[in-house]
């Protein structure tokens, strides 16, 4: 396996969704290729960082407005 081929299989590998025979080739290549090791590690960390990040907190003022709007709609629909 060459670096380009590893790149093509990278997502499936990171997702644990790669065919076992390809997985072996992938790991053989990885064991001898420092740049590819780092790229795979970077991609894993990129995903982990986006999962961990909470950059968009719900604004309180919007939350109040949202509940008031939905409450009014609810009363129109269900009458209570």
């Amino acid at each position, binding site marked *: 396996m060459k670096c380009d081929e590893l790149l093509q299989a990278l997502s499936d590998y990171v997702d644990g969704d790669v065919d076992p025979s390809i997985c072996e080739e992938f790991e053989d290549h990885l064991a001898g290729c420092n*740049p590819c090791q780092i790229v795979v590690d970077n991609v894993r960390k*990129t995903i982990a*960082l986006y999962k961990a990040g909470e950059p968009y907190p719900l*604004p309180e003022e919007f939350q109040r407005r*949202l509940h008031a709007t939905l409450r009014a709609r609810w009363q129109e629909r269900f009458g209570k």
Partner: protein
Amino acid sequence: MEGIDSGTSPTDLELLRRARQGQWDAFEGLMGRFEPRVFRLTWRILQQREDAEDATQQTFINVMEHLDQFREEAAVATWILRIATNQALATLRKRRGRSTVPLDTQPNPGDDETPMPHPEFIAQWRDDPAELAERSEVKELLGQALSELDEKHRVVFVLRDVEEFSTRETAELLGISESNVKVRLLRARLRLRERLTRTLGDESTRVTPDHDHDHGAENRVT
């Protein structure tokens, strides 16, 4: 995909059933559980706060109006996030309708066949993701990097890697093939990796890529 269900509090499904019977408190409880996540999802996709607020509001209006149509085959969380995703996608379509960009420069399915972006800046990150996630400048960087992605790559990344929809669910939501989802996800991940590593990478560990090598001696780990 699980909702919040701790201790003796009602499950998402119990709340939804009570809401169906016309109990506002139950519906409001359901909103309280999901509104932060719906807002986050729509903001990530739309990259604009006001549009995210509108999409969030419309999501809960749709949930309210379709309570009777929830068939209890999927988790309540999945159902609500699907509605939110569809709402965000509708907003994107509306934006394109207003757009003055010529048609031939708009995204099309064929451009998934462009060459794969190659990693250029390759270096170990200085810190762990859990630690980085707490820093305000990193939060800003994450938003910036996401906003720089093409819309079609951003949507797939958010659905697959942040909201954890499966490849099949993402394909169904977007009306594209599973292989297209995979191609777009790989491009999104590689572009985000490149962008984040340029800021978060440790220059002293930087290595030079050699795209032609196959187990080249200069890159062999010893």
